[in-house]
């Protein structure tokens, strides 16, 4: 899942993934979060994009959690889903990332 972070500042990799886990935990609890098998694959600080991996069954849960993020590390922020794909290669192709 490729994501675009929309915020005034630039959150660090750690701050971003904490915000994502926090949002999932708030909406679905520890048990729900454990089902997602969430993992941060790539984080491009300069263009504020990230690639995360999640299990197919919980894509909607993760999408809802990402949409519920309103701040990252105290900065107002929004996370938009750019694209979803089955493999990292297909995702890069979809977004024309080299």
């Amino acid at each position: 899942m490729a994501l675009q972070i929309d915020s005034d500042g630039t959150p660090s990799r750690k701050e971003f993934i904490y915000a994502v886990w926090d949002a999932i935990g708030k909406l679905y609890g520890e048990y729900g979060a454990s089902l997602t098998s969430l993992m941060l694959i790539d984080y491009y600080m300069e263009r504020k994009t990230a690639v995360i991996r999640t299990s197919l069954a919980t894509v909607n849960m993760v999408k809802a959690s990402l949409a519920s993020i309103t701040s990252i590390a105290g900065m107002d922020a929004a996370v938009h889903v750019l694209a979803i794909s089955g493999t990292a290669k297909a995702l890069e192709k979809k977004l024309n990332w080299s």
Partner: protein
Amino acid sequence: MQKRGGVTLKRVFADLHVCLSMNDSAATLRMISKTAKLGYRLIAAPLAPETNKEEVVKLRKACNEAKIDFASRIDLQPRTTNELMVQLRRLRRKFEIISVACDNKQVARQAAKDRRVDLLSFPFLDFRRRFFDRAEAELASNSLAALEFDMKPLLVLHGPARLRQEAAIAMKFHVPIIVSSGVAIEMLLRKPRDMAALACLFGLDENSALDAVSHIAHAIVKRNREKLGSGFVAPGIHIIREGKNR
């Protein structure tokens, strides 16, 4: 994408509740361009009853420049049923979408059965004033009103909500559900598919959630534009050509 009659139709997304500041044109333009960037093709903004036509034309023009469609909307907050009737009579032909904020049961019931009302909205966190029960749903199912869920309170407020139960009642009685943002800040705008994912939180399946941010909103605006057109007589009856009196 959706397939209808062998043809693949792309969903056209709409947000029927974007709060635009009429005093700050720069902020308005920013909100419009942001909604366009996020993938919406139709937005509606609540306006004041005394808004003149020039302001609506100006907003429509700004939206057209961003390649999105604009629908005028008014949010009514009547305290009595009489007040609601008076406001509907006065404003129905001036605005494309009429939403009624139901603050008491009498107003909620009247709004649900009145075919001039497009959207029913209820206070988000105050359970005692959320009157969308089975009786309300039954009335709404016989008229044209849809149930509106704003996502803003879900993003900015903390507290329990009872939306799942209401969504289930609405679906049982085939009352259309609309999901809109209701935000005035760009940062709180979400992509339509993200809004649909949020709508799944209160029990809508994926297709219904996507319909709530696309087809249903478009259908309301299309129906009202037809009604406001000069050739409309009654549902299904239009003036095609006027003859000369001999």
